[in-house]
Structures are given as structure tokens and as C-alpha cells.
């Protein structure tokens, strides 16, 4: 028996090739921060980024004009590549920006020699023209930009320029030297943006990863491979990217002099996050982002210390946290830190308002039809028990709320909707008023969901809940591309989707119901209410103010009353980190905060 056991251990030792657990040579004595990504990183080209994890990876290398204060909540913008906040004209249409001087791109072979000034391969200084070029890349269809909608119909002459570029012959070059009226370089470090109408979210947009500043010569040098060769100004540079497995970054030796923040919101100060105030950043020698498709390996890797910080997968929540969300003693004793991060999420089940029975806003619909369909939706909302869904599928971790504005933003409503379920008696009454007593005469409602996860089980639960008032429902699962296609063709009746904030402003959620954004735009509900549209047009041009907050609340209440989207929830992400990590304050609204982190060396 003993010899068998010895044999097994020898075999294991051989396979392990001398010590699986010692850190690799490149990491010994260094401060590398290991973090998890829950999905693959697809691209390093900012204009093409399309996921949280694209943003996370890109933000280590590229920088935007603005970022958010690391330790201030609610979110507060601050200049990043800019020297100061912009000057804004009285009519809010004209912005003047000034870049920081001496910001350098990372060294890369894509930089040609600048005779007498700079040898080949050495990163040059960022100038105003880089910002304009980076914005112009968004108008080049060859880049497959994902964020054009953020600029559409907002910057003078930009739409016309894009339209002309879209129509150019396939072999015609992109016109980089065209002067666009609303995008003007006014000096080596200064530039101006002229808007067609006030756009108070512009500065938030300029903090989004998709607007990061890239060097044109590198984009051209690498061509199609630019998505894998990021060349930015950020605190880190990409050393290695094994697709679908990991990304390794090291400290950018040319990163300018930047410091850890000295101001913090009281609750963040209480967490000791100002201990490093005023010290030069970055503290880390590098970052490794590990990509996981499954929860078990992610969690086990965290527990053995190969990951420094991660999200707690839902199936491990009970293992880590008590019912009051505090951490269990064993983890506290190990020095594991935690933070329950509320996400700016809008998870919902929504109706296609052009469906004649459940929407009642189809072309030619009568007022009576619209009213009848609204009552049906209100009844369905009252039959829906989101608490049960939250308990069964999210360990009570999601925040339930009313309307489309998640917690943390102006206009948010936690509760008080007259249509928050379950209230079966009222739901039944509304069905009677709609002419469908006990659901009789009502066709079977079809819920379209994205295949995967527990969407099938969730569908079963909703089916059971609606059956209590006599509404019959069937669940139809599709792949995400198929689901999108159904939406575009307005073939879906009732669907489960989610929207994550692009920037922390309720406008980003309220635009989901704006008539002109109807599908294939972001208004998947095809909701087109003239009163709502008019109020939205008023609100979207206002700067943050009590007047705007009041309009946001009014818009929210229209959506609640019409029950366009029901069962609103926002996720809470349970971040945990090991003892060696310092200054950890996660955010999913912006991603270049790794530069503030520190770890004890291995």
C-alpha cells in the first residue's frame, strides 16, 4: 500500500515539474496584481470595445480625457489627459479643452524616427491632433466602431462627414485631413468641440474607454493587428496576451508623475483608503488578468492565492457571507477583504409595444386598444414576484427597484410603484377591466430570453407566477444573435434583457424609451409616447440640477405607469481580495483604477 502511495506521489511530482506553487521567475520579489475577468477580452482597439472586460483590459494601457475620482461617491469627473476641466460657453454648445503637457505614448516600434528629436521606436508626446484623430476613427466604418451613437447628431459637421465616409468607395482612403466644423485643433495642446445642441453627458462620454486617445501612426502601422497591439499613455503596457487565457501587463516606465488621491468620501476614508494619499502611482510592477469561463476554477484560484482579488461567484456567496452580508469569521481571520459593489444595472422584462395585444402602440392602434393593453401589462407586473426570483436565482443579492433608473443615480425610485407585485387581487381586477377575466381570451404570451445560465428556470418561475392570474406564458430561448435579430424584426412579444450604464447619468437609461431610438436602436420596446419624447428632449440638454432631476422622475413615472419594462433589478457584485492587496476600491463604471492598487511582493 505504501509503495503504491509513493508511486502516486512520484508520478504527481513528475507531472508537476518541480514545484507548481512557486511563483514564476518574472514575478519573484515583484508586485504583480492578479485579477479575474469573467469573460474573454476581444479587442484592444478602443473604438471597437464592446464589453466590460474589453474596457478593463484597455483601461490599463489607454487613457481618456477624463476619469472619475477614485475615492468619491457619487461619481465625480476629473481631468485625466486634460490639464483642467474644460471652458464651456454660456449656451453649453462650445467646449475648450487643454491637454496636459509632456504626456508620452509608450515606446513601440510603430513610432518612426523624428530626425534629430526622437529615435525610431520611442513614444512621442500626446498632442491635440491625437484627440481629434481618435474621435475621427469613430466615423470610419472600417473600424467597426461600437460607440458612434454617443456622437450621433451632436457634434457640428461630424454626421455629414461620417455619412460621406460611409458612402465612399471600398478602396477610397479615409479623409483624415478633412476639417470638421465641430472638432477643431486650436493649438499644440488645445482643441475645441462645437455641439449642435447642449450635451451635458459629453464629459462622461469622454471618460468612456471607447473614446481613449490612440496614436494614428500606430493604428496605421498595425492595421488589422492594432486590436492586439495597444500603444497608449496608461500606467501599464501589454506584455503578453494569450487569447481566452490571460493578459499580462507591466509598469509603463514612461508614465508621468501622478499621485494617489488625497480626498475621499467619508465612508471610503473610514475603510482606510487614504493611507497612500499623495504617494506617486503606480505602486504595482504589473497586472495579470486571468480569464475564466467557469466559477469553480476562479474561486479555487482565489483561495490558493493565485488570484489577489475576484468577484464572489453566486454559488459561493453563502460560503463567504453571513445572511446579513457580513463576511464569515474564517475569511475575516485570513484577512480577506470584501465590498458589495452596487452596479448601475437595469435588468428587466420588457414588452414590445407594437404588439397588438400586450403593447397596444402598433401603427393605427386606437386609444381603447392602447388602454386595454396597458391594463394587461399592469396586471402582469402585479403578478410578477421579483422577490421570489431574487431569492431563488440571486441569493437575494440584487437590488429591486421601480422604473428604469438604478440605485445611485438621480431619479432612482426604490419602491412605491402601484404596480410592484405580487398583488394578485389587483392584477385579476385589471384583467377584468381589460376584458380578459381570469386571462380568458388572452393569447399565450411568449417570453424571449437568451439561452444559457438559468434563464430556462427563471422562465419557468415567471410562467408559474403569471398562471396565478390566468395568464399563460411560454418561454422561447435563443442564442444572443438570434434574440437580437428577433428584436430588430420586432418579432418578440415579451423579453428579458439588461442594460449596464455607459456613464453614471439616468439619461443613459431613459433614452431606452425615447421614440426615435426605436429598434434597431436601444429602444427595444418600440415605445413611442409623444409626451415622454417631449420631456426627454427637455431633460437631456439640461445640466445636473434639481430641474433635471424632477424631469427624470417624471419620465421614470411614465414608464412605471405604462409598465413598459417590469421587475427592475440591479446586481450587486461581491468583490473579495486577499490580505496582500491594498487600496482596493472596485468600480465597474470606469476601469483604470488598477494604477492605485498595491500588493505585498511575492
Amino acid at each position: 500500500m505504501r509503495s503504491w502511495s509513493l508511486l502516486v506521489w512520484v508520478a504527481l511530482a513528475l507531472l508537476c515539474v518541480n514545484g507548481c506553487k512557486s511563483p514564476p521567475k518574472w514575478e519573484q520579489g515583484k508586485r504583480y496584481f492578479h485579477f479575474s475577468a469573467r469573460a474573454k477580452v476581444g479587442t484592444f482597439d478602443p473604438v471597437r470595445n464592446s464589453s466590460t472586460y474589453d474596457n478593463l483590459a484597455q483601461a490599463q494601457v489607454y487613457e481618456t480625457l477624463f476619469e472619475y475620482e477614485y475615492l468619491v461617491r457619487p461619481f465625480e469627473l476629473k481631468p485625466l489627459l486634460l490639464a483642467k476641466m474644460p471652458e464651456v460657453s454660456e449656451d453649453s454648445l462650445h467646449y475648450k479643452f487643454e491637454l496636459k503637457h509632456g504626456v508620452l505614448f509608450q515606446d513601440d516600434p510603430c513610432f518612426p524616427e523624428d530626425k534629430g528629436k526622437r529615435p525610431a521606436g520611442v513614444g512621442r508626446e500626446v498632442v491635440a491632433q491625437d484627440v481629434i484623430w481618435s474621435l475621427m476613427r469613430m466615423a470610419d466604418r472600417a473600424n467597426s466602431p461600437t460607440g458612434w451613437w454617443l456622437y450621433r447628431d451632436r457634434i457640428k459637421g461630424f454626421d455629414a462627414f461620417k455619412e460621406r465616409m460611409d458612402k465612399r468607395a471600398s478602396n477610397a482612403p479615409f479623409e483624415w485631413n478633412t476639417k470638421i466644423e465641430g472638432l477643431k485643433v486650436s493649438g499644440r495642446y488645445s482643441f475645441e468641440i462645437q455641439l449642435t445642441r447642449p450635451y451635458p453627458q459629453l464629459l462622461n462620454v469622454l471618460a468612456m474607454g471607447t473614446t481613449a486617445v490612440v496614436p494614428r501612426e500606430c493604428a496605421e502601422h498595425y492595421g488589422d493587428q492594432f486590436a492586439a497591439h495597444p500603444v497608449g499613455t496608461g500606467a501599464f503596457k501589454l506584455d503578453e496576451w494569450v487569447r481566452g487565457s490571460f493578459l499580462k501587463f507591466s509598469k509603463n516606465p514612461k508614465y508621468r508623475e501622478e499621485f494617489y488621491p488625497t480626498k475621499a468620501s467619508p465612508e471610503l476614508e473610514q475603510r482606510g483608503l487614504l493611507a497612500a494619499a499623495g504617494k506617486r502611482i503606480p505602486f504595482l510592477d504589473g497586472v495579470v488578468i486571468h480569464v475564466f469561463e467557469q466559477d469553480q476554477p476562479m474561486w479555487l484560484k482565489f483561495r490558493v492565492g493565485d488570484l489577489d482579488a475576484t468577484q464572489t461567484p453566486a454559488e459561493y456567496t453563502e460560503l463567504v457571507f453571513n445572511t446579513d452580508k457580513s463576511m464569515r469569521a474564517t475569511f475575516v481571520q485570513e484577512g480577506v477583504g470584501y465590498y458589495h459593489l452596487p452596479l448601475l444595472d437595469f435588468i428587466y422584462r420588457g414588452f414590445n409595444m407594437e404588439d397588438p395585444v400586450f403593447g397596444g402602440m402598433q401603427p393605427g392602434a386606437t386609444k381603447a386598444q392602447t388602454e386595454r393593453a396597458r391594463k394587461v401589462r399592469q396586471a402582469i407586473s402585479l403578478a410578477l414576484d421579483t422577490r421570489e426570483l431574487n431569492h431563488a436565482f440571486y441569493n437575494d443579492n440584487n437590488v429591486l427597484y421601480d422604473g428604469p433608473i438604478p440605485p445611485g443615480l438621480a431619479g432612482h425610485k426604490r419602491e412605491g410603484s402601484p404596480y410592484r407585485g405580487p398583488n394578485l387581487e389587483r392584477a385579476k381586477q385589471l384583467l377584468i377591466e381589460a376584458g380578459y377575466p381570469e386571462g380568458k381570451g388572452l393569447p399565450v404570451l411568449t417570453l424571449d430570453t437568451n439561452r444559457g445560465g438559468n434563464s430556462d428556470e427563471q422562465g419557468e418561475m415567471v410562467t408559474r407566477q403569471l398562471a396565478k392570474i390566468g395568464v399563460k406564458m411560454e418561454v422561447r430561448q435563443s442564442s444572443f444573435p438570434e434574440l437580437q435579430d428577433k428584436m430588430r424584426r420586432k418579432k418578440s412579444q415579451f423579453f428579458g434583457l439588461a442594460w449596464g450604464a455607459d456613464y453614471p447619468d439616468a439619461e443613459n437609461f431613459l433614452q431606452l424609451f425615447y421614440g426615435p431610438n426605436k429598434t434597431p436602436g436601444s429602444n427595444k420596446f418600440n415605445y413611442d409616447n409623444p409626451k415622454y419624447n417631449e420631456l426627454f428632449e427637455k431633460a437631456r440638454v439640461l445640466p445636473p440640477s434639481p430641474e433635471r432631476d424632477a424631469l427624470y422622475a417624471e419620465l421614470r413615472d411614465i414608464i412605471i405607469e405604462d409598465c413598459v419594462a417590469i421587475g427592475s433589478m440591479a446586481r450587486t457584485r461581491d468583490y473579495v481580495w486577499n490580505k496582500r492587496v491594498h487600496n482596493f476600491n472596485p468600480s465597474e463604471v470606469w476601469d483604470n483604477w488598477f494604477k492605485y492598487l498595491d500588493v505585498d511582493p511575492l
Partner: protein
Amino acid sequence: MWAFILRRLLGGIPIILGVTLITFLLLNVVGGDPALQMAGKNATEEDLAALRAEYGLDKPLVSQYVDYLKQTVTFDFGKSYKTKEPVVDILKQRVGPSISLTLPALIATTLLAIAIGLIAAAFRQRALDRGLMALAVTGMSISFLVYIVVGQYLLAFQLRAFQIHGYASGWGERWQYLSLPIIVLIVVGLGYDTRFYRSVLVEEIGRDHVTTAVAKGAGPTRVLTRHVLRNALIPIVTRVMISLPFLVTGSLLLESFFGIPGLGAQLLEAIESADFPVIRALTLLISVLFVLTTILNDVLYAVVDPRVRLE
């Protein structure tokens, strides 16, 4: 032989054409609109139209199919809709990790299964044979997922004998990450293969030429290796050949749980994101590999059994 190979290659063309046609129709008719994926959150019909024009998705289906056939012939599968990288580059990056996982596992599984099969056959209907087959059946009855989850938990997490998850570009480090998934793959395959090879070998042992060899005084080792194993090579070759295309496509579950960036994971990712060029290229690759391994299989029959003639 060369005429045979040429004939079989020509015979494979309609099969591959059929696969391309079915794949194309499945993707382009019911696979959703890739422009929607590419356009981002708030696209207009104009944005979608511009993207469809950019990628030739606005052309008639026949014309798109012809373009696809041209790509097939030239092995230029275009660019990924998602990353804009050439599809060929993506396949090159991913095929290495898949093979470094599956090839050692196939070799080890085959050798081990044949060895165990020989022992079982030699001791057929006796306690050792029954014990080995009971183990094989038990092994087969356990789900692949259980091996992965338990293996990862016990061997990598509890015993710390292996890396839990990950991959490295350098071979030295890569081995640490691949060891456990390879062991899992071997254990999973061993039950099926052992039973299969045992039944093949038992059948061979019962043949007259083996009885004659024993009667002539040949020892058990000689009988098993020269007279049994050699004559059982045809089913063995068939079994190995069937596995070859899967060496390239990898193992979806293992790649997913152990973070190995192989082609299996790539195919799933491409399906989720409606990345048609990648899906088409991978499907084509798999069908070509099947055709080629079938031909190779036939050729190897002639090599291992002189009675087989390639006509």
C-alpha cells in the same frame, strides 16, 4: 495507391461542398444578423446597412456563397467580425493549445487501453478481467464533468499537486497547466477504449491462427503481440483515426474549466458572437480533417494488413 488516394480526395470534394452549403445556409438564413453584433448598442438602420455593405452581407445569398467558396479554395477565410483579425491567424494561435492537450492524451490513452485490454484478454473470464472491466464500466458511467470538477478540487486545490487553471506560452510552464487536464482526458477515455480493445482482442484470441500458434508452442507474450495484437490492428487504427479530427478541435469542457485557449473554446465564442467567418472556417477545417483521416485510415489498412488492396 496514389490513384486510390486521388480518387478518394476527389470523392471528398462533394462532401466538403455539402458541408460548406449547409453551414452557409444555417448561418446566413437562421444565424441572426452579424451587423447587429458589430454595430454596438444603439445602431440605426443606416449604420447596419453600412456594416452589411462593408462585409458583403448585403449581397444576394448566392453571391455570398460563391465568395465563401473562393475563400475555401484559397484558404483565406477573411477577417473575424469580432476582432477584425485574419481568421487564419486566429486558427493558428488556437490549434497549438488544443493539440498540446489532446495529442499526449490520445497517445497515452491508446497505449494504456491496449495494454490493459491485452491483460484483460489474456485473463478473459477470470477475476482480473472481470475486475478490470468493472473498473472500466464504472469509469465510463461517471460524467466527464465530475472528473473535471472533482479532479480540479482534489488534486489541484486540496493536494496542490497541479495548477488549477491557466496556460503559459512557454513549454516548460505550459506543462504544469496541461498535466491535470491531460490526466482527466486519459481517465475519461480509458474506460471506453479499454472495453473496446479488450473485445477486439478477445475476438482475435479465439481465431484459428492463434490456436495454431499456441499449439506450435509459442509463448503467451509472443502470441499476444505477434499473433493477436498485430491482427487486431485494423480496428485499433480505425479507432485512433476517428479521434484525429478531435485532436485539432480540442475539448470544449476541459478548455473551458482549465482556461486552455484552444479551438473548442474559440468555436463556442464564435457561435455566441455570430462570428460567421470563424465558424465557417472551423466547420470546414473539421470536415476536411474527417475526409483526410478517412483516406488515411484506408491507406493504413493496407499497410497493417497486406491482404487489403487499395483499388
